[in-house]
């Protein structure tokens, strides 16, 4: 067991402002060891993105973090965001202690500037003293470290493939060596071959301690089986089961974990057999028939 990197305790998030508050994350606690990748898995609406936003300290109204404590690097950060003062208080931690790679980040590269200008913009947002040359040197080193072509810095977004854009934005969001990276569905819009390249790059980044840990948020369990050391399965705002990836995949304890695992369709003989049973009119796999049963809200 590696040394503890981060511990989050009792995170509660609500979406307010409407007629009634909606509790999206309901008392979640997580632990992450140094050098570990934690897979946070669950289906649409279970609260995994909201939890990621709370951990990355980027929650803004109508999302309110009611409570939550993040212990990292010997510091205890109160995650709650009840006022504008809280948002300001979190500022020094954003991008440095915890960095966020939001969903669909590859689509956020400005189409009108070259990647190298973006690199400088991002660095300068965190430290106004950084010069363009310094930012570019750092980016070049990083790309070389990760076996990526340095020439992408001279490209515009439309000249790059989706997979390349996603890897590039991952590199840019970790230029400041955050202790923890929250990656929200980083592989979901990619082809399987681009997915594999991104997964391998993330593993290399943790290996080289560009960041010390990753919370990998996704609905895709097969991808997590490639990348994560530990899994946390989320359903209706709570973590229903957590443990080493192999243990959860091979001996799931919670019914929801079993449901989620049984709906994975990988190209295997087992999947084929299940399909054949179904088409010949047998019961086939157990699949929930309504959204209620899977805990989407």
């Amino acid at each position: 067991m590696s040394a503890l990197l981060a511990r989050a305790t009792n995170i509660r998030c609500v979406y307010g402002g409407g007629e009634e508050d909606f509790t999206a994350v309901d008392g979640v606690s997580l632990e992450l060891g140094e050098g570990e990748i934690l897979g946070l898995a669950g289906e649409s609406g279970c609260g995994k993105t909201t939890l990621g936003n709370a951990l990355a300290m980027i929650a803004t109204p109508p999302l309110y973090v009611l409570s939550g404590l993040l212990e990292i690097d010997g510091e205890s950060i109160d995650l709650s965001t009840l006022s504008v003062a809280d948002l300001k208080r979190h500022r020094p931690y954003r991008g440095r202690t915890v960095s966020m790679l939001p969903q669909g980040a590859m689509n956020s590269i400005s189409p009108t500037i070259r990647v190298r200008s973006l690199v400088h913009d991002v660095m300068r947002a965190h430290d106004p003293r950084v010069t363009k040359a310094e930012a570019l040197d750092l980016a070049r080193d990083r790309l070389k470290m990760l076996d990526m072509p340095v020439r992408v810095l001279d490209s515009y977004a439309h000249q790059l493939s989706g997979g390349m854009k996603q890897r590039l934005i991952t590199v840019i969001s970790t230029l400041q060596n955050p202790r923890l990276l929250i990656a929200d569905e980083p592989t979901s819009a990619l082809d399987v071959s681009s997915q594999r390249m991104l997964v391998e790059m993330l593993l290399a980044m943790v290996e080289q301690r560009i960041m010390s840990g990753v919370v990998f948020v996704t609905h895709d369990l097969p991808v997590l089986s490639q990348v994560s050391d530990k899994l946390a399965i989320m359903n209706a705002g709570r973590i229903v089961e957590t443990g080493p990836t192999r243990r959860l995949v091979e001996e799931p304890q919670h019914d929801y974990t079993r449901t989620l695992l049984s709906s994975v369709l990988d190209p295997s003989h087992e999947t084929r057999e299940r399909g054949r049973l179904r088409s010949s009119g047998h019961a086939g796999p157990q699949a929930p028939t309504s959204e209620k049963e899977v805990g989407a809200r």
Partner: protein
Amino acid sequence: MSETPEMITRSRSDGEVLLSCQNVTKEFSVAGSTVVAVDDVSLEFPEASVLAVVGESGSGKSTLARMLLRLMPVTSGTITFRGEDVTSLSGKGLRQYWSEVQAVFQDPFASFNQFFTVGSLLRRSLALAEVTGDEAEALIEECLGYVDMAPAKTLGKFPHQLSGGQRQRVMVARALMMRPKVLLADEATSMLDATLRVNVLNVLHDLRSELGLTVLFITHDIGQACYLADRVAVMERGRVVERGSTEEVIFSPQGEYTRRLLADVPDLRGSLRT
């Protein structure tokens, strides 16, 4: 490749060929140069079978679907339905074709008019086919039944009040109301959560065995093809590079591209790191 469609897509247990395309090609002019999106593709769809077309983004599978649906003209080649050439049908003939060949697309949200309830949406579709009144209500009820949805709980709702899985099942019901012979599903389950995806695939399984529906299932996800299809065709850069029974293509792939595609698919139990 010199193989004929017959030798690769037929087997003895198959029904009659319902829909087929022969040497279909689509070229687009982009900034002065020509891009061949679909390159000399021939496929056959025997009645009551499920054929999956798999490939990565940009391989031409959606363009092929659009041509088969007659939503896009072919550059060259022929599309045949029930033995008749439908490549350049128009007017009434084309409308008749569309009532027999229905489609469900990837994004269930984009296919709905947000201002209509599910009920008025389905009734409007039927009115186009001149089915109204009690007959329409009965048909709507029957088709929602196929996709396991209760009319009382569904018809009064607006699209945004349904989940993605429910919306997609309504789209399947809408397609079924036309009593099609062929259902073309273009990444129809790609945006759904895993558990709901299995649910919609099971609906397709059942429709094939109960109604004898012919399904063309277009996907980038080999796992879904493995679960649903009788046959698989693999597309790369506009060409069909491998085809055969699902077992042959997935468990003993011959082509380099298919092997690479399969190698990149994470296998839940096989890829565990620790």
